[in-house]
């Protein structure tokens, strides 16, 4: 089982960068690019194209599959032949995207073209030509592929290549801990934890959640010298289920007393992810309510939507309400209350209503009408609502204590909580 290679396509479906293919035929990658572009052009919605495409070919006697994902404007695809686990491929693609992000920040066709030499090196290191992903721990990778930094650019312009290379580790993979590099030194030792929770819910028209889940992740940014051994304990960890962890976490310790014991990688990483399951009841409180009345007439519809915050102390931020008005929607005109705004995207046929800040217990209102070109309007039966709440977690999970052993210093600790939501509210 193996991944044959990786190809990155730009918006127009042209390859920007591709890894070396071991296949003897140069047509092989092209075949896959064509198959994907074909499938995309045929689909009514690009997002409905199956993520694993079957690519048959007359020239090459072995058929193969094409796994692809979209990232921003780019599409990354991995041709695979043989009975390969598609999840393996998608997991690799995701890892590779994360690495690119770590190296370049925002990824676009431009950044990739500007840094193609680095991208190539990354491809070489992360995906062995035999089709097995190899080095993907960012800590280890940074030892062997230098990120394009300003300093390096300055040095290379000045022609001082020797200096620029000094940071390259002469003894890679010498670290006894594969995810952490050796010899890390900081003047100020700090470690930050971000608890990020996302509510995913479907709410029925009577305001009852048909489905609600909270998925949480603990992101960490470790800037600690030496080989610190951390012990993190939570308050409220008993409500966490379905946990999965970064390989650095000692699982036995978690199973025994729900504490995270680990030697962190250097820099940013995702320590754990979990699902929050409140004890007893099924439902998780949605932090707002929506009251909507929609009247459908011939070739048009009128609506009146009220969003009310249920929170008493916190502000809901960046709320967007998206409403797909149907394939035949031609336009909308609305009145939005207090400093909220609305737009109609005529291509996506979606009405978007944005509220920057919803203070505790306040209400917002959007009323208006839309028109359709056919007789019976068929708008989506639900609003898709996204929002954020800072300094708040649905699970009320809190970091109780962080103990550091193995090093002498006392680190600075920071913990933040943030909530996001993606709620479908049916009217």
């Amino acid at each position, binding site marked *: 089982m193996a991944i044959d290679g990786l190809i990155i396509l730009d918006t127009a479906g042209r390859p920007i960068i591709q890894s070396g293919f071991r296949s003897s035929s140069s047509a092989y990658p092209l075949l896959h690019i064509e198959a994907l572009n074909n499938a995309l052009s045929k689909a009514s919605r690009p997002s409905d194209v199956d993520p694993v495409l079957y690519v048959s070919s007359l020239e090459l006697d072995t058929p193969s599959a094409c796994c692809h994902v979209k990232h921003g404007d780019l599409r990354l695809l991995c041709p695979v032949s043989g009975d390969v686990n598609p999840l*393996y491929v998608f997991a690799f693609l995701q890892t590779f995207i994360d690495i690119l992000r770590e190296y370049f920040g925002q990824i676009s066709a431009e950044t990739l073209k500007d840094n*193609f030499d680095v991208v*190539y090196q990354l491809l070489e290191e992360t995906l062995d030509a035999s089709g097995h992903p*190899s080095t*993907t721990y960012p800590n280890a990778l940074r030892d062997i592929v230098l990120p394009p930094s300003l300093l390096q650019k300055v040095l290379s312009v000045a022609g001082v290549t020797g200096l620029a290379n000094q940071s*390259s580790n002469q003894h890679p993979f010498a670290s006894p801990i594969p995810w952490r590099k050796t010899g890390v030194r900081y003047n100020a030792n700090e470690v930050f934890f971000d608890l990020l929770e996302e509510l995913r819910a479907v709410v029925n028209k009577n305001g009852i959640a048909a489905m609600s*889940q909270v998925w949480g992740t603990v992101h960490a940014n470790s800037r600690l010298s030496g080989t610190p051994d951390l012990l993190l304990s939570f308050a409220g960890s008993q409500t966490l289920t379905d946990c999965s962890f970064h390989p650095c976490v000692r699982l036995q310790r978690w199973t025994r007393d729900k504490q995270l014991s680990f030697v962190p990688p250097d820099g940013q990483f995702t320590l754990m992810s979990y699902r929050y399951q409140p004890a007893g009841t099924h439902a998780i409180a949605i932090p707002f309510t929506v009251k909507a009345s929609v009247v459908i007439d011939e070739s048009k519809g009128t609506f009146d939507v009220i969003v009310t915050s249920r929170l008493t102390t916190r502000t809901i931020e960046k709320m967007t309400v998206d409403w797909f008005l149907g394939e035949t929607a031609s336009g909308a005109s609305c009145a939005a209350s207090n400093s909220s705004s609305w737009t109609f995207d005529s291509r996506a046929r979606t009405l978007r209503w944005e509220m920057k800040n919803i203070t505790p217990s306040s209400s917002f209102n959007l009323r208006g009408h839309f028109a359709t070109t056919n007789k019976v309007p068929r708008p989506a039966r639900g609003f898709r609502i996204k929002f954020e709440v800072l300094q708040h977690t649905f699970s009320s999970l809190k970091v109780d204590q962080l103990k550091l052993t193995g090093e002498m210093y006392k680190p600075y600790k920071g913990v933040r909580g943030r909530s996001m939501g993606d709620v479908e509210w049916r009217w």
Partner: protein
Amino acid sequence: MASFRAPPRKGENFELAADLNSEYREKRKDAIKRVIANMTVQKDVSGLFPDVLKNMQTDDLEQKKLVYLYLMNYAKTQPELVILAVNTFVKDTDDPNPLVRALAIRTMGCLRAEKIIDYLCDPLQKCLRDENPYVRKTAALCVAKLYDLKPELVIENGFLETLREMIVDSNPMVVANTVAALTDIHNSSVAAGSTEEIFVITNNVLSKLLIALNESSEWGRVAILNALARYNTESDQESEHICERVVPQFQHANASVVLAAVKVIMIHMRNVQSENLTKQLVRKMAPPLVTLLSNPPEVQWVALRNINLLLQKRPDILTNEMRVFFCKYNDPLYVKVEKLDIMVRLAGESNVDALLSELKEYASEVDVDFVRRSIKAIGQAAIKIDEAAERCVNVLLELIGTRVSYVVQEAVVVMKDIFRKYPSTYEGVIPTLCANLDELDEPEAKASLIWIIGEYANKIDNADELLGIFVDTFIEESYPVQLQTLTAVVKLFLRKPDSSQGLVQQVLNTATKDCDSPDVRDRAYIYWRLLSTDPGAAKTVVLAHRPPISLPRTTVSPALLEELIGEVSSLASVYHKPAETFVGRGRIGADTLPKTTGDVGDDKQATQKALQTVVAGQQAENLLNFDDPMADDQQPLGIAATAALAATPAAANLLAGTSSNPLDDLVSIFGNVSMGSVPAAAPQQNGLGSFGGLSFGATPMAPSAASPPPPAQPQQAQDDLLGLF
């Protein structure tokens, strides 16, 4: 500027060549980058080969990597030039910097040039025993690449033995990559037809793998887990031990590790004797599967396909988690379709209300395809859960009330299935269905409604009027509708002979004289003959009791399911088909390997077998949409297929007279004589034969009927049949 080929005289490549030979190293490095950039956009820079090659010897690792990249790209087209680089490669494998050593050995493995390969063995030998683990693991993978190109070199140099020794390496990264390399070699040797087991996992190897498992990177873990899945345990205790050691992998952040672990557990759980442990394992499997659904849609889809398969084997895995599978309207269609299927699988008496209100929502969505599938799901729920059937019917009635054309049509089709499962229970809704007669324009919906009218002809006062509409337009209708009309009118006649004499005469006339389809004509002839010779027999045949339909627990045959469970997390489990049917054996690069001709036959046989399994599986799938267009297209297969299927409950449905496939109907006609027990090929043959004797005109299906061997001999059915005439 001496070079083998005349360098270009002008243009970009000319400038690049000049820069590549510059005395300033910065300029040279920059030129290499530009060459690679041009290579990326498919410009031909092969002419610069000698100039680039000169820059290979450098202390600058980055520059070296770029030159290596260039070499890899053009080694195929310019093998005679690559030979010039060999010395540098070999020298680099002795470099004090392990990165350079690893880079050199890795690159040499990728150059698919015959000439280089002969120089590869000595450095590879050395690197396999390098002090640095990074070099060792790179070398291990290189052996697999070498095997792909020239297997005999690997065997001659004893690399296989070295690899086997490396499984007990102190470094888990080396262990994982060695396992991957050995697995690759094993697979390609098996694909090439070798019977020799290259990678045998012994007891000793097993314990080493279990230790390395927890220390490896995610990719290493997947490789090790796949190897564990292949291990044949010696005792039940060993199986239990493996399961216990693998279970913690469920908590890994990487989805592919989770699924690979699920696969190992599913395989080794077969041998676990302790019921308690099995229960525990199944319970522990649920959370990681649910967690997979928090991923992006692509991963969700793969996870859902696998969950769908796992549920067929172990329906108890996710009993309390149906809500997790509720669809959002912006989910991609491929995710929604899978979720729907799984929701129905998880439906039970306790959660059917939640399911129904969800399905009702979906049925009012925008996406027509999804709406239809949702309505189908309501029907499946009704058939699966007896207690909920009435609630399902009510939801369907509500949907019919919306008068949205495709909703109504799909609901009518689904109602027919419900009538099949619960005969004479929901007659009250028939008027509502008939009221929507004018709205129907799809053949399947029309055929379904006609079937209902025919079935309940004695309860519908104006059945003759309703059927008359279709008889009048008989010739314009599609064949499935014609067939159903024909049968329904005959049913009506048998129940109310007085009022519909004219109608049946009219339809038989039209069908036998003006119809293009031989199937319709033949069925009309059979009915005609039956009615004219012995109306009593016609009654027993046409109005016979039909076996009720049920929802199959699996969509694939049990044997295939077992095979696919072993393939969980692979492409096969996503397609729900054995690997042989969609992926050729061996990888593309392996085409250089000599293939022994004797094995091709074996391969073909295996594929043939697999395909047969799939066909059987697919037929079993056709439970609810029994108007399978495939079957219509492949008439000659009809009887053969049904004969093979006779044992399954789904087949009973196919054979039960509601089908548009006339052959199926034929079978059912004769099958009914022996009341529900479905006769296999033998009586069919006899039956058809006797028709022939009755001077029935064309019997086009006779040759095809002769093909299946008679597996069972329901003697009585045969006798009864003969007695009929």
